[in-house]
């Protein structure tokens, strides 16, 4: 379970990568809408879009995070924190 109250120190860096991949799958999305509190689903990403964003972000950081941990994240911020935590632990 990610800690969505206390942001991970690397949250912003991971969020930037998540946003880049989200814009790749949804090129018409207004970047201003991609605030940390929103989820990929809220922003209009369908199941395959969400899979692409999560997989591509993991690949960029060389991470392998379990499906269960990824799906417990309910917002971009929580997703970024889960990924940032694994990155800090050196998961690969």
């Amino acid at each position, binding site marked *: 379970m990610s800690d969505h109250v206390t942001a991970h120190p690397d949250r912003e860096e991971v969020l930037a990568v998540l946003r880049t991949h989200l814009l790749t799958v949804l090129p018409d999305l207004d970047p201003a809408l991609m605030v940390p509190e929103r989820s990929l689903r809220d922003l209009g990403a369908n199941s395959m879009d969400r899979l692409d964003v999560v997989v591509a972000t993991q*690949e960029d950081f060389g991470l392998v995070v379990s499906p269960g941990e990824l799906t417990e994240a309910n917002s971009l911020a929580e997703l970024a924190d889960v990924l940032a935590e694994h990155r800090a632990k050196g998961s690969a």
Partner: protein
Amino acid sequence: MSSTRPVGIEALHAYCGRTSMDIPTLFRHRGLDPDRMANLRMAAKSVALHCEDAVSFAVNAARPLVEALTEEERATIELVVVGTESGVDFGKSVTSYVHHYLGLPRTCRLFEVKQACYSATAALQMAANTVAASPHEDARALVISSDVALPVPHSYIEPSQGAGAVALLVGARPTLAELDRGANGFHSYEVMDTCRPTPGTETGDTDLSLLTYLDCLQGAFADYASRTRDVDIVETFDLLAMHTPFPGMVRGAHRTLLRRLRRMAPPEIEEDFTRRLAPSLHYPSQVGNIYGGTVLLALASAISHTELTGEARVGVFSYGSGCSSEFFSCVVSPESHRAARESGLDRALDDRHRLSPEEYDALLSAAGRFPFGTADLDVDLDLFPHLTKPAAGAGPLLVLESVRGYHRRYVWIGGDR
């Protein structure tokens, strides 16, 4: 005792219903976002009649295979196993009914297996091992995967929820596909992705299921590679066939796998998809997800929709929520292609009655009137006379006629019965 004789699929026959629903029509009817249709990559799905269940689907799939056997050959069937997540009784197996209505000899084992959409592969591998271990060289097994959706109307999974059964005759004359013995990789663990937690509920977490499928594809292939020599995801397999919840999912999984294993660029991945994987999606894009049988339908599609000039190796990935997965392989030939074409599935799919939205809703409503556990029932076989009337050229069809004291009774309609 193990043996070196070949083992695999001698013959395959699928029954994917007599009615279908066009996916664009269903999207319009339900008011679903048409932009999301491209994600599915589906044209139509099969829909069960109100008088069809996992038993009747299984029997209708297997009947032509059994009828093609001589009395002596039928006696070589040592095992009948049905893989399903659409059972009709917690104790009594679907197989007991199937064995009866197929008129098979009593000298065989019969039971049912369950592991969501992995059930067909579980049954196939068990059957192959039974045949290989039998002291009788002509031993055979009949494996059937049969499932019917529990519809979730107005959801985005409704368009992919199909119905269908695939029957395989497993033995030592594997005309349709010879299994690579010992070349099996597994990846399984507990996860709550999709499930049928009550007799009438089909539910789950789509994101978790897609991520788990992808995780298992990579894990099962890695295990396969560790048990065999010099395996390469591109060079080793001429064709690929995977469990297909919806064709768009398989396309995404293939893209991720090749990017991770081979660092392939998008145009190369696209070419590889079209050449090695797209043939397996022809039937699933017409039928939808038939759960356990989907991976077999994908395999049949790959064999049937590829012009084979020589032997070809097919890499097969089977995934069942919950979860259990396996990557295995088999060898097919031009003779396999001919046999697959002759099974007549393309024509049967084309001949399905295309339901109007009103007919579709009426069928769902009629099927919902007798849930799992119904003790007594008379099924009105005249409720949709235009749907149950024998199709021109189609053989007899087994349908549910009544239930008495929980005992299901079926009747043949059409054909010469």
